């Protein structure tokens, strides 16, 4: 059967509403008499709460409710939010109370809820709440968190260690002891927050105990939010409906369950009706999780011929004040990204997560893999520098070869599963990127520029990344009596184009047009189960499920049509919604999908044909059999102004491989958006704190997001090594642009400043920092 849509850059089905302002984000949803909420938040990084007096706030105009943790029912007054991690895995797992109890641990922590007629009134009332704080010492610098005399992030803990995990394989000591070269590299990386253009938002509606609670929330994981609320308030999941409507970007942090969601659920059940809270941007800086800093101390062992033998070292990760997302970020930093795209014989890393009194850490696009890629690529570049090898050459000597796939790295997941890369052609990708970036001419360009007093640099980063982890994502395909096809998936979208790519699959399988497909998603009451839209996993999980469900529907329709037309099943095909004989001489015979669907859905006075169940629909949870690995080669070209330290990224080339692509235009969009995020991490985005833990960069004038004038045009060429692990051959593409981008850019900056001997093992680097490095190198 011909695939008309799969692999083509069809225009998106979701666009018509977005380009005309008809999107339905949480704050757009209209429920009569909605009340508005605001939160009182901690102004201190660490303080005891001695008392809270809400009486003046309760008397303010328009106020319906003021809640603190003490006002909760006995059932959850002393209940913290759950740490989502296997029991026993973490030394000191702590998550927060939904509203602070006894102690606050971060600026921005939720202390009280105010519900009023308008947001303005709620904020007016919040200002009238009197909290008596006793400030405590705060631990802000994560590198000092394990010092003997470090302030405790939580006064009830014995120290600031969350947990230490490790990953190792091979005979590390022997290999390092006998290696020709062992180099030490230390990296420090800061990645900031997600800064989705839509802040978080929650709208809860509660009318009676029988119907339960409906929550619209800007989330990447409605099913996880439902479970968390159900467990917290002790209610059955069937009485809690969580819907992710249109969501304006996620990038990771919208994948957690937040205290605001729990508090609003409690509040709505208390006062009834609809209550809405929209996070404002200042709140977003502290109340939405970020990805905390990481420090890597690495040793890399290599032969004199530039063969990398192994890496070992320690990783320190700033987890912030609370474990809002278990220990996921450290896990995604450690277990999967190493050993990278290279054949290495050994690896030994220990990762320690520490608490600080700063915004909690969770994955942000790339989820620790960018930090790992950066550390690894800087170490590889260090070896290249030591041996006088060019960046492309050292990678050529170490990249996993095409015929070595599937490649067992030697690393193991925590539960013992070996890490196996399914398919790829890393050298092929490198060749494509080298050609795209005109790498061979670069030295000449660089020398010509230097003669003019201009400093150009080029940097390469190779990358391989896990995508599509389980356990499942559900898809339901149903042909309506009208002939329209309803596609329903559990996964929420924050811009990835689910409404289009999965419709492409259905359209191909059922022989219908894209316009005939209606789409529903991410509603715990009406769609099949989903888990979360994170970690570049949905194409790989929901894609096969969609195909399997569509195929089941197709088979059922053809079986009934075969009966009705008295033609063998294998002589029938579906085109334009009509099931008809393949034989052109009989093409005027046929029955429409609409007719078949109606036959299977008689109401009063009809009957379903024997041997068939009602309804032309199917649900599937099929997914990839194991994680597919996407890969890429990335080359950045920069110009550095050595008088001001300004870096311009003048060119960026990506050879990207995510296997088969359902919609290449959407894959390009993911790559470009991801690269720009990575450039932001390399050069612009940094949240500054003062010594007391006050976040200083809490507006967009000071926290610098990448904007259009400073971003390069990004050239992309695709390579496709399909995954053997799923019938579609697809791999995830959501994070591949970001993961190696900072590595490539920093490598290029270092290359530009090579005449001065500047080495850069950190990001972001600002122009003042570059001048500082230049000055230091010249003394």
């Amino acid at each position, binding site marked *: 059967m011909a695939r008309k849509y799969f692999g083509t850059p069809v225009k998106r089905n979701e666009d018509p509403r977005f*380009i005309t302002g008809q999107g339905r984000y949480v704050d757009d949803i209209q429920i009569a008499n909605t009340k508005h909420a605001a939160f009182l938040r901690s102004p201190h990084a660490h303080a005891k709460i001695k008392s809270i007096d809400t009486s003046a706030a309760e008397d303010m105009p328009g106020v319906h409710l003021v809640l603190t943790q003490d006002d909760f029912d006995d059932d959850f007054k002393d209940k913290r939010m759950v740490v989502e991690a296997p029991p026993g895995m973490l030394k000191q797992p702590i998550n927060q109370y939904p509203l602070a109890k006894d102690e606050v641990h971060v600026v921005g922590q939720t202390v009280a809820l105010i519900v009023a007629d308008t947001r303005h009134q709620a904020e007016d009332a919040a200002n009238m709440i009197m909290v008596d704080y006793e400030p405590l010492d705060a631990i802000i610098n994560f590198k000092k968190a394990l010092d003997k005399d470090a302030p405790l992030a939580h006064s009830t803990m014995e120290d600031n260690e969350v947990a230490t995990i490790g990953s190792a394989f091979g005979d590390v000591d022997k290999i390092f002891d006998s290696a020709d070269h062992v180099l030490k590299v230390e990296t420090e990386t800061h990645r900031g927050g997600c800064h*989705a*253009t839509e802040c978080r938002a929650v709208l809860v509606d509660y009318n009676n105990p029988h119907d339960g609670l409906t929550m619209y929330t800007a989330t990447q994981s409605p099913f996880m939010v439902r479970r968390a609320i159900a467990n917290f308030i002790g209610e059955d999941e069937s009485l809690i409906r969580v819907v992710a409507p249109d969501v304006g970007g996620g990038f990771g942090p919208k994948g957690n369950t937040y205290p605001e969601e729990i508090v609003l659920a409690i509040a709505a059940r208390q006062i009834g009706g609809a209550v809405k809270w929209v996070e404002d*941007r200042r709140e977003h800086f502290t109340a939405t999780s970020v990805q905390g800093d990481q420090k890597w101390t690495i040793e890399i062992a290599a032969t004199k011929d530039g063969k990398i033998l192994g890496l070992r070292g320690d990783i320190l990760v700033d987890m912030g004040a609370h474990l809002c997302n278990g220990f996921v970020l450290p896990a995604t930093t450690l277990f999967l990204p190493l050993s990278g795209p290279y054949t290495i014989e050994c690896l030994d890393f220990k990762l320690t997560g520490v608490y600080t009194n700063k915004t909690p850490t969770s994955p942000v696009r790339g989820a620790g893999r960018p930090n790992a890629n950066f550390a690894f690529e800087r170490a590889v570049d260090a070896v290249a520098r030591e041996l006088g090898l060019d960046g492309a050459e050292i990678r050529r000597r170490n990249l996993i070869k095409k015929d070595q796939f599937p490649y067992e790295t030697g690393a193991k997941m925590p539960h013992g599963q070996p890490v196996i890369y399914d398919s790829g052609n890393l050298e092929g990708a490198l060749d494509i990127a080298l050609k795209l970036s005109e790498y061979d001419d670069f030295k000449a360009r660089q020398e010509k520029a230097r003669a003019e007093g201009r400093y150009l640099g080029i940097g390469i980063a190779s990358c391989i990344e896990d995508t599509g982890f389980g356990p499942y994502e559900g898809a339901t395909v149903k042909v309506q009596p009208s002939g329209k096809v309803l596609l329903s998936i559990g996964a929420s979208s924050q811009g990835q184009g689910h409404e289009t790519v999965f419709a492409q699959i259905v359209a191909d399988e059922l022989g219908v047009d894209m316009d005939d497909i209606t789409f529903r998603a991410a509603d715990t009451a009406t769609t099949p189960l989903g888990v979360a839209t994170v970690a570049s996993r949905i194409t790989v999980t929901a894609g096969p499920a969609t195909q399997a469900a569509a195929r089941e529907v197709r088979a059922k329709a053809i079986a009934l049509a075969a009966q009705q037309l008295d033609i063998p099943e294998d002589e029938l095909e579906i085109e334009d919604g009509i099931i008809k004989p393949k034989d052109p001489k009989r093409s005027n015979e046929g029955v429409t999908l609409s007719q078949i669907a109606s036959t299977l859905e008689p109401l009063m006075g009809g009957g379903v044909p024997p041997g068939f169940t009602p309804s032309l629909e199917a649900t599937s949870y099929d997914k990839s059999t194991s994680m597919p690995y996407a890969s890429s080669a990335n080359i950045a070209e920069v110009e550095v102004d050595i008088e001001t330290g300004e870096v311009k990224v003048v060119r960026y080339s990506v050879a990207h491989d995510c296997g088969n692509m359902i919609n290449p235009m959407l894959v390009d969009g993911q790559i470009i958006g991801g690269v720009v995020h990575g450039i932001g991490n390399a050069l612009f985005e940094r949240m500054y704190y003062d010594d007391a833990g006050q976040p200083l960069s809490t507006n967009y004038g000071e926290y610098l997001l990448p904007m259009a004038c400073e971003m390069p045009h990004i050239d992309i060429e695709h390579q496709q090594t399909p995954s053997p692990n799923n019938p579609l051959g697809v791999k995830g593409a959501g994070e591949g642009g970001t993961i190696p981008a900072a590595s490539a850019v920093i490598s290029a900056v270092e290359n530009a400043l090579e005449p001065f001997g500047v080495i850069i093992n950190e990001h972001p680097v600002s122009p003042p920092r570059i001048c500082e490095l230049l000055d230091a190198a010249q003394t």
Partner: protein
Amino acid sequence: MSDTKDISLSVNGKQYSANVETRVHLADFLREELKLTGTHIGCEHGVCGTCTILVDGKATRACLMLAVQANGKEITTIEGLGDAKSLHPVQEAFRDNHALQCGYCTPGMIMSLAAYLEDNPNPEESDIREAISGNICRCTGYQGIVAAGLQAAKEMQGKR
């Protein structure tokens, strides 16, 4: 003690009268009072451009105007720029060029570009980038938006 004022204004060609609290900004007024939720709020401090609308034909950040200041003005929001039956060239170009992903910055981007191209019919890539330099997008990396701007410019030139 909330201070209110009567205002009268035209929005997308329709006349409205309302009594508004004076501290409410124009973006909130459009969204909450007039239920025109196409104009989005991203930062409320004038950097992200998500709330961009036209005030008397000029691109303006709606979060930085009080609703009462719109008295007597002609406002155009994304809903008034074009609809399914008749899309503005910028709207069409956005869909053609995958210039949007989550769609949240999109109305502000489209309004900014529509206003810019009205006065600047022959832009190069660097001009388009400058035109959107006051609009944040976290999804697209701007490349599709630039392509859309260039396509729309050609389309609008052809129609002049």
